[in-house]
């Protein structure tokens, strides 16, 4: 195996490269006083003129790296001087070799560095491509997860809506059942009164002008009085049912995404009516509603917020208390305050109440989403929701909503 690059053996030709050969030969010749020549070990002349055939030629070996790489020769010359010139040439060789080795090795090192860089570059390009693919894949997966989360969130919000509406349904059913009961009872009585009047009419037809005793006997004074009263009572009951149905209709807008310009005071009154059955026996509802400009909003959604806050207030009651709903305009915003005199929220829990699924109620009693949904709705309207609470004294939720430009 022959070593390559900087380790390869150098011939005298390479060792003389970079030196002006004619000048060198001429100067060496002048120093010796005779023309000189330099040959390779195999006799090829590299410097000067080949000796004439038949001439007596002296020659001295030229060494580099321990080996003879050529000969310096001249005819009829002083041998000592020839040796001295040979020594000088060998020094030339060393200098040339030094340059040669350095440049060869430099070349090798540069090549090696270049190959290594090219290799690294290739690896980097490869890993860059992989990361790009990975990033794209991650993006797709994040999108997928976001989709899933949004879907789940919608389901949970729906569930929360159903839970608060469901809580209402029982109360509303009771509220409607009550007037329906007495209206039915009244109508039954009315039917018997109609029979009494029929009987009296028949007596009139068969006996001609009746005697006053027949009127009295049929107790028609009472019948007519009571008939009138029970009709009035039934009409009032029907009014009540009609009002409840009207309020519920406002609530059925929960699922409608329509925007409308509304007076929030009316919304609050309507929600208060709906929740009235829940208040009964537990809290007194006080409305302190200041004049408000109409706001463009999603009324169904805000109704849900107010209902949530009211139901929470009712549930916070220990014994009988008061729930006060106040509205006014502050700093060009609408302020709705729902304050209860309930048990209050402990300080350590207060920062967490808007967290999803945070609930202090028994399993199955609350979704833990009521306040989360409420806050999201208010924020979606460009507003904010604040809470203040003192244990034992009560809690106040304040909803701030921006007043539109018009």
């Amino acid at each position: 195996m022959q070593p390559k690059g900087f380790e390869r053996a150098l011939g005298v030709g390479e060792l003389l490269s970079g030196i002006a050969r004619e000048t060198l030969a001429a100067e060496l010749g002048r120093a010796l006083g005779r023309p000189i020549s330099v040959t390779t070990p195999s006799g090829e002349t590299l410097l000067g003129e080949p000796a004439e055939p038949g001439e007596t030629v002296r020659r001295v070996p030229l060494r580099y790296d321990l080996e003879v790489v050529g000969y310096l020769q001249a005819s009829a010359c002083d041998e000592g001087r020839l040796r001295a010139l040979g020594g000088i040439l060998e020094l030339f060789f060393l200098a040339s070799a030094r340059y040669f080795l350095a440049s060869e090795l430099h070349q090798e090192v540069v090549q090696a560095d270049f190959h290594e860089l090219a290799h690294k570059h290739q690896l980097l390009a490869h890993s860059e491509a992989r990361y790009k693919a990975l990033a794209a894949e991650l993006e797709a997966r994040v999108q997928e997860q976001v989709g899933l989360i949004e879907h789940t969130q919608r389901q949970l919000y729906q569930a929360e809506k159903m839970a608060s509406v469901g809580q209402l349904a029982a109360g509303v059913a009771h509220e409607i059942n009550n007037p329906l009961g007495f209206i039915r009872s009244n109508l039954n009585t009315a039917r018997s009164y109609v029979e009494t009047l029929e009987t009296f009419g028949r007596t009139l037809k068969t006996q001609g002008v009746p005697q006053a005793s027949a009127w009295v006997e049929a107790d028609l004074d009472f019948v007519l009085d009571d008939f009138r009263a029970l009709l009035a009572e039934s009409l009032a009951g029907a009014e009540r049912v009609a009002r409840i149905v009207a309020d519920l209709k406002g609530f059925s807008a929960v699922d409608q995404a329509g925007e409308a310009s509304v007076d929030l005071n009316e919304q609050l009154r309507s929600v208060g009516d709906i929740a009235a059955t829940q208040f009964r026996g537990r809290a007194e509802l006080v409305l302190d509603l200041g004049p408000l400009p109409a706001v463009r909003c999603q009324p169904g959604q805000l109704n849900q917020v107010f209902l949530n806050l009211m139901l929470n207030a009712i549930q916070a009651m220990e014994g009988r208390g008061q729930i006060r709903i106040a509205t006014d305009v502050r700093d060009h915003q609408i302020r709705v305050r729902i304050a209860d005199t309930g048990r209050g929220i402990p300080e350590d829990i207060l920062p967490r109440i808007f967290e999803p699924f945070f609930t202090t109620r028994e399993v199955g009693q609350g979704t833990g989403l009521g306040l989360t949904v409420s806050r999201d709705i208010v924020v979606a309207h460009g507003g904010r929701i604040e809470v203040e609470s003192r244990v034992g004294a009560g809690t106040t939720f304040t909803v701030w909503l921006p007043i539109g430009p018009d």
Partner: protein
Amino acid sequence: MAECDEVSRKITIKLVYYGPALSGKTTNLMRLHDLLAPDLKGQIMALETHDDRTLFFDLLPLGFRTPSDWLIKFKLYTVPGQVVHDATRKAVLSRADGVVFVADSQRSQGLNNSESFQNLEDNARRVGLAFERLPLVVQFNKRDLPDIVSEEQMRARWGATPWPLTFACALSGPGVAQTFRSLADAVYPHLDERFGLGARHGVGPDAFVSAVMGEAANAA
């Protein structure tokens, strides 16, 4: 890897002085040039920067002729110790037949020594040398300095390794020839196996070492 040229009848052996920067590799070569007297001894060729730090390598050629009239040529190289010249170190180390690791004995140099030794092991593998089989001598240099790790400690630390340990002061000479002798001893069996130094060329292990160090000539 030593090279054998049947045409010009020579075997060229490459020995490399490796080690951390400024541990005295070039000084080892300069001292060897003074101390050794083989049949053939060339000039030291030094490729250094202006501040005397080795840039590419130093090279000292040594040689002798065998009874079979073959030329056995030794090329002693140093590598540049500075960390940045790693590609050069690799190029010089490649095809080496034996290595002297020149460590700096000063207490402060422990980390540099071990990093450089690790670098030697890594580069040996990279250039395709079987490090376990590579003839290697570890020289602790600069024994003349005051704050050095003691011989006992060095032997305790390195004693379990398979490599001969030597202690030297390259600046003044002690230990330098001994280090080279240990390496020549370690290299001989490999060369004998490959080229039949003993059987074909009539050079036994002792004659081999004496010839390259020039002791036979002195004795005669």
